[in-house]
């Protein structure tokens, strides 16, 4: 927790300071030798073997508008990659291609080095990709257990729903996430924002996901619950699960993510290790598309006019 606290300092004094000074500050405070060199941070990812997920040159358009344009991102086991960008930058869309909600127009998706065809959410789930959507994607009129097991219901020997077993399992999972949760019989529409969020999270982690996509997982949560989700992410990471974390909150991303990818207008501005960039620089990437030295520029990076 100490590291992000240090890094918030430049953000408060944002704007006026020249970039070079900020980088100097990062170098000062950093013990990582590669980060000090600054020039080849991207080498690290490539040295780690086959990525868990690699999306290569993925594009998708809606009625002529390119929501995602030749975006490439990757994710390793036990790694948290933060996806940042404005509203409409294309991050949710890109991630929905991976979760099977949208079908890509072009590009490849590789899981552990093998190209896969993800055409619908079922395909994604069978590959171990679980998603917590920003909208939570809960069926409001049914209870927590029905939502947790939606599409994967437990059945009795004669093929009927085993509601009792599902509720028992749900009680176990929910106890891990939210020990105070008691309202198992009520439709989720009656639950608070935080409780609904924990149902959505429980659904994603219950089925042994290898790849977890979290789209604004803490948007509806209070500080205590947000901290709980943070702990959960660290725990999942330790289990070797790869996580894509979409967030508007730079603090969250700097706190939880190993790397970050910034998108703008459907294109990747750049990819960086959180240790190699400051929050100010990342803001510059998000707002202006300026790719700092510590990051690997993508197709969406602002071209320097020499």
């Amino acid at each position, binding site marked *: 927790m100490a590291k992000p606290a240090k890094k918030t300092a430049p953000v408060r004094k944002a704007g006026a300071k020249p970039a070079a000074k900020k980088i100097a500050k990062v170098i000062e405070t950093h013990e990582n030798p590669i980060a000090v060199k600054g020039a080849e941070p991207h080498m690290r990812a490539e040295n780690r073997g086959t990525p868990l997920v690699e999306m290569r040159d993925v594009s998708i358009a809606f009625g002529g508008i390119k929501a995602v344009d030749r975006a490439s991102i990757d994710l390793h086991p036990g790694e948290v990659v933060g996806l940042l960008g404005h509203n409409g930058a294309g991050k949710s869309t890109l991630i929905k291609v991976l979760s099977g909600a949208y079908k890509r127009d072009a590009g490849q998706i590789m899981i552990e080095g093998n190209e896969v065809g993800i055409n619908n*959410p079922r395909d994604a789930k069978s590959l171990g990709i679980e998603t917590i959507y920003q909208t939570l994607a809960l*069926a*409001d009129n049914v209870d927590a257990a029905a*939502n947790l097991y*939606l*599409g994967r219901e437990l059945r009795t020997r004669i093929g009927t729903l085993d509601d009792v*077993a599902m509720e028992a399992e749900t009680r176990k999972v929910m106890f891990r996430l939210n020990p105070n949760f008691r309202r198992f019989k009520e439709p989720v529409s009656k639950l608070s924002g935080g409780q609904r969020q924990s149902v959505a999270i429980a659904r994603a982690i219950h089925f042994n996901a290898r790849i977890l996509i979290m789209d604004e997982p803490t948007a509806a949560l209070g500080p205590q619950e947000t901290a709980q989700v943070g702990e959960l992410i660290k725990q999942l990471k330790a289990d070797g699960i790869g996580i894509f974390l979409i967030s508007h909150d730079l603090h969250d991303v700097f706190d939880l993510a190993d790397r970050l990818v910034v998108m703008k207008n459907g294109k990747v501005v750049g990819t960086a290790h959180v240790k190699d960039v400051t929050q100010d620089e990342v803001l510059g990437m998000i707002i202006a598309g300026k790719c700092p030295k510590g990051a690997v520029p993508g197709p969406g990076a602002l071209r320097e006019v020499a």
Partner: protein
Amino acid sequence: MSNITNTSQNPALQNEGAVKRFFRATEIDPRMLGMIAALILIWCIFDIASGVLRGNFGGLLGGSFLTPRNLWTLLVQTSSIAVMSTGMVLLIVMRQLDLSVGSMLSLVAVAGAVLQVFKLAPVLGVGHPAIWILAVVACIALGALIGALNGALTAYAKIPAFIVTLGGLLAYSGMAFYLAKGETVAPMDKTYEIFGGGIPISWIGPFWSWVIALVACAAIIFGIVNGRRQRLRFNFPLRPIWAETFLAALGSFVVLGITNVMNSYPWPFKLIENYAKANGVAIPPGIENKDGTAVCMAGDQVVRCTEGLIYYTGYSLPVLVALIVGMLMTFLATRTMFGRYVYAIGGNPEAAELAGINTKWMIVKVFALMGALVGISSIISSARLNAATNALGLTNELYVIAATVIGGTSLAGGVGTIYGAMIGALMMQSIISGMSLLNLPAAFQNMVVGVVLVLAVWLDQLYSRRVK
């Protein structure tokens, strides 16, 4: 009520009022109780009103509504709409709608009639047992097929269900007219006619009615015991014993009560006479009695009498069909993945899709199910009339949708129960036949049904807002 006021062990629940605690402990849906209360109120009003206007015909409150005869007829008349309303619940829960069920019923009934009267009977010979079997299968299959077409156009061609089925309403009724050449197709096969409940062999009699009632009571008790065992297995909170006993007693009481009413309706006088003569049953001697429902011999004349040869109807086949359909549909809606998906899609179609449910195929399946149920209703309706015409299902779609909505199904989707819709159908039929019992003009019937429909939805919304 003394056991209800016992304070619960749970201190958190002690502050609740007795009524609230009662509903919590028994897990009875207050909405259903309200609906049943409204139904009983309507029945009482009609009985009193008919007593005042037309004199006492043996009704419970001095009229002619709460008599075994009227209630028996009421159930038979309700069965066709009730069967269809169970399918409409699932459609409306899934945010779809089928306006074409009435026309579809006419078309399927006419097709079934043409098949047995003009196609099968000349080939196989009138009364051949294969005729009714083929006709029944054909009606249900044709219904399912038309329903699947409605569903496919809605799901895959992405035409709103309202438009698809509005088109269907016109098109299917046109087809029915064309197929029947505007004429009445009759008579139906003798065995097929049993499904209508209009002839003595479609009445199962008191013995089998009691057998069914006892089986139903046993099933209620087994269900409660089994549910308790399941909850114990996983250490879930249990209903208090008094609540379990109360539910078992209430359920059994209702089943036995309805059965008793069904078993108190005697065959019409003429039918007893015909049956006795045809089957060589001896008619006992007696004295003529104008109010009698049994038959006696006064000299060499068959007369009505109070103590003589009498048969009781018991449950009628279409009512049993409707009850079985209701149970199967309830099972489907609450105990299977299919039902779970229907409700999930209604609650949030996008979430259901993201959870990996093939929502389009589900829409086709539910429309096809609706069609198959229309097929069953078309058999009941045409067998009851012993004929099929292109006007057989006229305005049925409106009654089916009204029954479903009166029964608590929300047009916004996601909420609705099978039993609610069936009670809704019974309520609507009660109003219609109650008003004809009062000799009110037909014009008033639709006015009142319309008002009741709007009132029911308004009350339901008031209730939901208060609960929130």
